[in-house]
């Protein structure tokens, strides 16, 4: 399982597109685009509170094993923490 208790920065807004997810951070006026497959991870995490359900969805969407999916998702989370999209709770 990936890191629990991920909390999205409430200054961050997103729009889902066919090519990925557009992100804007109103706090520092930064903006960028997350392409697929990372965009799929973002979409699932931001719109689902149920971690188990999210895990199942992502496994299906990414078409990877459970462990590969978790590794991939954790890499995404770490990257988004660096970009201040996600703030890790405690």
């Amino acid at each position: 399982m990936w890191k629990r208790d991920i909390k999205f920065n409430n200054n961050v807004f997103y729009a889902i597109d066919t090519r990925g997810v557009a992100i804007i951070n109103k706090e520092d006026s930064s903006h960028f685009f997350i392409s697929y497959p990372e965009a799929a991870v973002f979409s699932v995490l931001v719109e689902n509170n149920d971690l188990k359900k999210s895990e199942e969805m992502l496994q299906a969407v990414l078409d990877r094993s459970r462990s590969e999916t978790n590794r991939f998702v954790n890499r995404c989370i770490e990257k988004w923490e660096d970009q201040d999209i996600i703030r890790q709770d405690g």
Partner: protein
Amino acid sequence: MANLSITTVCNKRCVYCFAYDTRIELGKTCIDNETYGKALDYLERSGLKKVRLLGGEPTLHPAFTLMASMALDRGFDIMLFTNGLMTDRVLDYLVSLPEKRLSILLNTIHPAENNRKGIRRQIEVMEKLGPVIIAGINIYSANQEYDYLLDYINKYDLKKEIRMGLAHPVLSRKNVFLHPKEYKKIGYRIALFKLEAKRYGVMLGFDCGFVPCMFPDEYFELLSGELRRAGTRCHPIIDLLVDGSFIACYPLNDLIRVKINDKLHAKELIRDFETALLLYKDIGIYPHCTSCQLFGTRCNGGCMSNRIKRYQNCQDFA
């Protein structure tokens, strides 16, 4: 360009009114002489030759004729955005002006609307000012008809141009606006209308937010003149509110405001607004815009207000 709103007072209540937010925020009020003078200074400083007066209904400003005369005396031409429901005094004043100094964009009432008094007044205005009038329509529903505009042009000798606007959402989303999912229907209707308009030599002028993909491919050549501008027209208009604040445009009235001062120049203002809007330029009005080869080149993705509306807060599902 810059539109000067000289009053929030209006004698109509259009459901799509793009000034809805500012009308509620500022209440019923008019621009004062000092602010209006500063606005004319700003236009002069910026090398702009035309004063574009709007409201509310600008002719309802108690000093409308004085303000218009001030602008004319300073060498500006006037473009008046009006619903035509003006007093006889104002109508007589406008009739007295040289035709080459005045243009009127008339927000027309459909003949079938339940507003006989309003329609009658608009006809009176068209009868007296026909040659300086461009008929306009704001499209807020897929069911609107446009043929009556050609009747008006032919009957009252209006300019052979129709200004078509799409009703965009104001930030509060409290006005009636046209959702982009309706655009293709509208585009088809406009294309058929263009066939008729062409017979009379009437051009269609598209206001902001029209996008190339809303029009059927088979009519591209017919609409080639109009389509040159479609997809390109979403940039800061620079509207001045009655309280002396500049905004990018009415739908984005709350995004950024700059107070008028003695040094402001249109170039800097546009640059500052465009910088603030860069944040939202990664997407278009549709999820598939970023996959379109025209996006970012031939088409900027449509109305910025519609684009911003697509963004959701990450906390919405928390």
